């Protein structure tokens, strides 16, 4: 579960990590009030969307299509104002808020549709002596949390890893003892954080680790982590993802979730406890099990088709879930054919057949449907489909199913 920057910063502030003062706003008036309250003569206004690349993003309603094309192509210099604006007056804050709120931000990551900006974050700037990078994340190889930092702040960590791997430093926390003081000190020394900024840096690293654990994060990234001329160490930006498996004990954070950027079909699927990811192809898939669902997408591609989605109905789906899954797939106008691929373990093939028949009878079938059943109660499931009188194409095995559905989608 992705958090917005302002939400992540609220959490960090609660756990004692220094962040510049700032507040979220949903209207232009609120934005002006926040800036006035913050005071000073310099503000940063930031669009609160989950997608990255906000600064270089541009607003659909403000710039022309050729500018948006440049944004999507990842051009370095794009004319116009983006999703992060530096403002030197209250009027400038007002203008920035007017450009952003209610408009659609297109960044390299959002794709051409862009995302509607509903919330902006107004914060004071910080004077910058050095820009660093710091993150806490799970090192899957070691099964431990790692504090990873680099002297190349402001740059994407993937780029640093490629060009300056020597700039990246890591220390691994033992879950029994937590991140040790000595480890935080070691990190500060390695980053050259001596003198006045040494103490604050050590404290910040430890608090990042504490915040990560307390919020059940699965990723916490501070980029840039800024050292001010006065020696303060401040989290200027924050990216935070919460572990989806821990939402049961993070109710408050869950209640903040903004599903506005999620595909509506994905939101609907989640309500039925279905794992659904929208893709760009023409062949809808309904599969049981994440691994088999991925493999089904792969084999469709192998036979020259393009999957329209990833859909895992799970291990013990019932008739209603199967029905809902088929209806969600059918709603996508790009879908030209559907493949149902089930290897029944706990999941019984007759239950799948029942759901498929119910869905087709209720909503009709506008596109060809190929069904491949294997495993528990396969004979019964096949018989039910055959006797239903519906135009369902049965398939034997994965390859046969993929070939048939790819042919059907291309109108053959």
């Amino acid at each position, binding site marked *: 579960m992705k958090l917005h920057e302002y939400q992540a910063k609220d959490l960090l502030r609660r756990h004692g990590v220094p962040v510049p003062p700032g507040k979220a706003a949903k209207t232009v008036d609120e934005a002006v009030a926040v800036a006035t309250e913050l005071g000073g003569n310099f503000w940063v206004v930031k669009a609160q969307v989950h997608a990255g690349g906000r600064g270089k993003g541009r607003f659909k309603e403000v710039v022309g299509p050729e500018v948006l094309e440049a944004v999507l192509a990842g051009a370095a210099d794009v004319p116009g104002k983006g999703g992060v604006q530096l403002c030197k007056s209250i009027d400038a804050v007002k203008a920035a808020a007017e450009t952003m709120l209610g408009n659609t931000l297109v960044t390299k990551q959002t794709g051409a549709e862009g995302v509607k900006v509903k919330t902006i974050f107004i914060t004071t700037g910080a004077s910058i002596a050095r820009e660093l990078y710091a993150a806490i994340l799970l090192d899957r190889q070691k099964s431990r949390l790692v504090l990873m930092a680099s002297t190349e702040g402001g740059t994407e960590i993937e780029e640093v890893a490629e060009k300056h791997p020597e700039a990246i430093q890591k220390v691994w926390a033992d879950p029994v003892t937590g991140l040790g003081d000595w480890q935080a000190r070691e990190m500060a020394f390695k980053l050259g954080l001596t003198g006045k900024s040494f103490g604050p840096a050590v404290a910040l690293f430890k608090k990042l680790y504490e915040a990560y654990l307390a919020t059940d994060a699965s990723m916490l990234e501070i980029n840039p982590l800024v050292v001010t001329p006065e020696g303060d160490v401040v989290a200027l930006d924050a990216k935070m993802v919460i572990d989806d498996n821990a939402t049961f004990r993070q109710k408050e954070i869950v209640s903040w979730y903004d599903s506005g950027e999620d595909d509506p079909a994905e939101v609907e699927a989640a309500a039925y406890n279905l794992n659904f990811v929208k893709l760009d192809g023409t062949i809808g898939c309904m599969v049981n099990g994440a691994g088999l669902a991925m493999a089904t997408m792969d084999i469709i591609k192998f036979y020259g088709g393009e999957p329209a989605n990833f859909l895992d109905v799970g291990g013990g789906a019932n008739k209603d879930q199967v029905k809902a899954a088929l209806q969600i797939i059918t709603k996508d106008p790009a879908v030209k054919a559907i493949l149902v691929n089930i290897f029944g373990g706990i999941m019984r093939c007759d239950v799948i057949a029942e759901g498929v028949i119910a869905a087709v009878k209720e909503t009709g079938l506008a596109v060809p449907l190929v069904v491949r059943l294997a*495993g528990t109660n396969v004979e019964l499931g096949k018989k039910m489909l055959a006797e239903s009188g519906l135009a369902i194409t049965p398939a034997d095995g994965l390859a046969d199913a993929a070939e048939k559905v790819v042919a059907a989608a291309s109108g053959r």
Partner: protein
Amino acid sequence: MAVLVNSNTRLITQGITGSAGAFHTRGCKAYGTNVVGGVTPGKGGQLFDDSVPIFDTVADAVKSTGANASMIFVPPPFAADAIMEAADAGIGVIVCITEGIPANDMVRAWRYLQGKNAAGANLRLIGPNCPGIITPGQCKIGIMPGHIHTPGRIGVVSRSGTLTYEAVGQLSAVGLGQSTCIGIGGDPVIGTNHTDALRLFNDDPDTDAVIMIGEIGGSAEEEACAWAKDHMKKPIIGFIAGATAPPGRRMGHAGAIISGGQGRAEDKYAAMESAGVHIVRSPAEMGRRMKEVLGR
């Protein structure tokens, strides 16, 4: 012999009175697994299905039954604790089926097992979020459909449940039975990984070859291939699920996500090729390719 579990395995179920725990305990029993007990705190002294004794703690169960394996169906908030309880009681093969355990809980549980093993114990965790492990004809621990398996000499290791069934179904269809099939689970923090499984199969006199099924996300397949390159004496057929998955999206399994340019299927296939693994890019070809490679 096979790997990890066989006819000498004495199994308990943690969470035996929950609906999934009860259902699958019956399934394992029906398959022929020697189920010697179950654990549900507060229900100690009762019988499950009038025949299987229930205990309050894993330690009690081990003391009374000599259990050496456990199958965990405890709900996600308490599952990591259940793993540590099994480890503390000295259970040698801990199979955690539970899906949805917070990663931070698993980091702690795994550290606990490592500590025990460093102090001389010999504990092995399979999963979590896995279908379990089966040695066909001898012992089934988990949720896989037993009837698709046939006893034989091919090892199967996979992160995914149903995709493992697919591989097993294909093997059985071409007349190749399985020595042991290990579903290692789709989470970012798991006990037994691909490398561990390859090691076990390499050392097992009853295994001739291995099907290794990976997934996008992490680098466990690359590490296993690096090991296999220098050590594996038996042929491996390899498939990676998720070649068509977009980056940054979690594909069902918590661990199946391409992030920061890491965990791509192409990198994993490349690692497999450099380790001499016979790769198949169509998941429908696993069984047939194995037959071809073995020349049978």
